[in-house]
Structures are given as C-alpha cells and as structure tokens.
C-alpha cells in the first residue's frame, strides 16, 4: 500500500505533511550534490569545490534542524496512524541517513583541502580516479532512491537494494588497484590510505542509500526488511503475512 493520496479531512495535516516531505526531498537533493562535489574535490584536489561542500554542509544541517521541529509538531498535533505514520517514520529516518551522508561528504572535502595543502603531485592523482567513479555511482544510487521516495515507488526501492552488489564490485576493484599501486611503490602509502578511506566513506554513503530504500519498503508495505536476505525481496515476500 503506497502513501494515501486521498485528501485528509483536516487540510492542515496534508499541508504540514507535505511541507515535511518537501524538506526531506530538498535535503536529499543537496546530499546528492554533496556526494558528487566531495568526490570531485578529492579527485581534482579542488579547494573551491571543497569550500562549496563546506557551505552546503551548513545548509543541510539547517534543514535537518527544521525537520526535527516539523516532525515533533506533526506527531504531537496530528497523531498520525497507519500509512501516515509509516511514511512519517520513513521521512524521519531518511533525514538521519541524509545527515550522515552530508558528514561523509564533508570528510571528502576535508581530505581534498588536506591534499591541496600537502600539494599532492600529479603522479598520485590517478590513485583517486576510482573515487570519482565510485562517487558518481553512489550519487546516482542516492538520486534513484530519493526519486523512489518522492514517487512512493517500492519497485525502485527494491532495485536500489539489489544494486548494492554493483557498488561493492566497484569498491573491491578499486581497493585491488590501490593494493597494486602500493606493492609497486611503497612511497604511495599515504595517498593509498587516503584513497582507501575516501572509498570507504563512499561505501558508507551507499549503505545509507540502501537504508533509505529499506525505509521506503517499510512505509509502503509495512514490512521491516532490514534483516531480510536481499534475494528474497520480491512481490511474494512483500505480500506474505510475515517478514521471514
């Protein structure tokens, strides 16, 4: 069962819920940009981009604070139940994931500034090509799940969860290449560690995107799939009476 589109008798509830939803989507759009900007900043050692991430970080944080206030007000005044409650929980948990994503993007920006100060030379820049590749993939994944939330599209949510394999493959490939660089030239160790750290951060962002997708499935179906095996996520599972 998707979000209830029938208008509420008390129109202010629809208004308040709509505002809450929009705040989350705005935060999501910013978080998506942050991921891409952060990855590009690290890849290009670009302090300008890093500054932009820093500026957006504050903006995302401000939206997060507005969201908490809106969430509390909605729960206290309207006491939602059923699908309204599940969707509110979804948006609330999504906001938490987006805030974490924002922090990971900030770490990428910090890394870019550090490398700029350390004057990372050209020969080491290719170590960070995979950061850009993975950053693009993760940003796209995040964009997909946020669109799925906006549309209440449970199928796309399941597809995002199943895309986790692709991100893992990119990450594993990148880590193998870094290991190769290190074996060839141990002097690269500082940059390899930093690149690995950036990749790990992007993996965590992908995990948050998966978490958002699981929240969407809960909102639409009432099923908690956080501990279900990914291969079992299909129509039959979602329509079964129990989550096993």
């Amino acid at each position: 069962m998707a979000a209830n589109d029938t208008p509420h008798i008390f129109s202010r509830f629809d208004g308040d819920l709509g505002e809450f939803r929009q705040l989350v989507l705005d935060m999501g759009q910013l978080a998506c940009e942050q991921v891409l900007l952060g990855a590009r900043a690290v890849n290009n050692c670009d302090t300008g981009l890093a500054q932009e991430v820093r500026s957006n970080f504050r903006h995302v944080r401000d939206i997060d604070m507005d969201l908490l206030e809106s969430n509390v007000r909605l729960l206290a005044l309207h006491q939602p139940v059923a699908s309204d409650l599940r969707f509110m929980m979804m948006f609330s948990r999504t906001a938490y994931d987006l805030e974490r994503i924002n922090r990971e993007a900030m770490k990428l920006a910090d890394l870019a500034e550090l490398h700029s100060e350390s004057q990372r030379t050209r020969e080491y820049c290719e170590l960070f090509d995979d950061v850009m590749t993975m950053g693009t993939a993760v940003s796209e994944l995040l964009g997909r799940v946020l669109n799925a939330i906006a549309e209440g599209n449970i199928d796309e949510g399941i597809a995002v969860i199943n895309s986790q394999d692709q991100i893992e493959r990119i990450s594993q490939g990148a880590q193998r290449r870094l290991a190769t660089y290190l074996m060839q030239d141990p002097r690269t160790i500082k940059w390899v560690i930093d690149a690995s750290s950036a990749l790990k951060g992007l993996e965590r962002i992908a995990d948050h995107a998966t978490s958002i997708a699981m929240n969407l499935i809960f909102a639409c179906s009432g099923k908690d799939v956080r501990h279900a095996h990914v291969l079992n996520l299909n129509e039959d599972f979602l329509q079964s009476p129990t989550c096993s």
Partner: protein
Amino acid sequence: MNTIETAVMDQDSTVNGAVPETADHKKELGTDFETVGNVRVANPRMATTGVNVYYGEKHAIKNVSLDIGKNEVISMIGPSGCGKSTYLRCLNRMNDTIDICKVNGEIKLDGQDIYDKKLDVVPLRARVGMVFQKPNPFPKSIYDNIAYGPRIHGLAANRSELDEIVETSLRKAGLWDEVKDRMDQPGTGLSGGQQQRLCIARTIAVSPEVILMDEPCSALDPIATAKIEELIDELRENFTIAIVTHSMQQAARVSQRTAYFHLGNLVEVGDTTQIFTNPSHKLTEDYITGRFG
C-alpha cells in the same frame, strides 16, 4: 416509533454533518461481504455468527460474525451510523427494548445461545453488563447504587456480605478511597468521572463475565478519561470487555483487538497494533487516517 426508538435511530444515523469523501466511502458492501482478518478466536467468551439487525426496513447490521475472547478488550470503531452501538446492544439483548428492532443470527455466551426463548434476560444482563455514554447513577446513595444489583440477584446472604461486595466493587473501580467516608451521600453528587466509575462498580458488583461499554468516556474530561482507561486495563484481568469508541487513540490505547464497522458491515478485525499501523482494507485505512468519517 416511541421515544427510545427515535433516540436510538437518531444515535445510529449519520450526524454532525460527517460526509464521506468519495464514492467508495458511501458505497454499501452488501451482506455477502467477507470480513478481512480473523473473526474467530480460540475459546471465545462470546461468539456471534451471521448477525443481522433491522430497524423496521432499515438493515442496520449486515451478516456480522465476530468472536470476543476471554479477558480481552476489543474495541469497535467506525463512523457515526455504522452500527457499532447496535451490534453492542445485541450482546446483552438490550435491543429487545426496541419494538421495531429485529435481530437474527446466532449469539452465544460461553456456548449458550442468548436468544434462546427459554433464556431469562435478567440474569443475562447481569452476566453481560453495560456501561453507557452518559453516566447514569441511580438516584440513591453511593452504597445503594452498588448494593442494588446484588440485592435483587440474591448475591449476598447478609449485610456483612453485601458490605464486602460493595467495598470490593468500589475498590476494583478505583473509587473506594474517594467515597468510603460518604457512602450514604447521593451518587448523583459525584463528579462526572466519579459517576462513571460508580456505574462501572455497579456493573461489576453482580460479577459479570462481559462488560459492554458504549463510549464510556465521551462525556468526561481528559483526566477522568485517563482514569477510566487505566481502570479498563486493570479490569481486563477479570473480565472480558467490548468497548465502542469514537476516539481512535483510545481504541489504540486500551484494546488488544479492534473491529472496524462501515455502514453495517464488519470490514476488518485484527490485532490493534496491526490495525493502526498497517490495516489491510482501504476503508479501514481511510477511516483511521482521517480521510473520511
């Protein structure tokens, strides 16, 4: 129609301008509609099967089957005029007092058909007691309000036993400490919340098996309501309770199972948590989320 019939029809008809939002909400489901969820429980205290109620030509309850389990609180929710109170009144044959009301189907209490012609309704109404929306203490003292039922049913052999019944009932209703020093004062002198607890004490004084509550808190302030809800939770240990309520939050707080009625049909019944977090039928979802009613 006499005054009672008119009052009952008015109570059960759509009031307060509550207009369904969409065509689906206005559509009747028919007598062959199958209730969503499990209407049956193991070892029920009361079991109803195929219950139909008519007020003259008006078909008020349509083929409702529902079990009420032992020591459970089941709440009945639904928009005005959906038949919740009519169904509740079937469970202790209060509808017998309405000339134009016809009930058919099977209603059993501990396996015994309560509409059996040989059954005496007076003891039935002691076994299946009722608490009404508006507190209605007798114009008697607090003591006599409670003692009246046990006296006429011969439940006490002497004054000492009667005193014990009165005290126990008032303690169970959470009222003893507030009234023990003024038992000879009129029951009508109590506050609204106290009067309702007095009515509950009066009901439990005759050792019922089932207590029916028809919007017991709708005339009470929030504090009194909270005390009644707390009391319902305590009474569940010893009694089976069926409660009709307009407050979704109250139904969610006090009951283990919830039944949703719509235009005379029982649409859905299930675990209260499930009904209020993930209802199966769209009508239930729309009603509890406030899309119509």
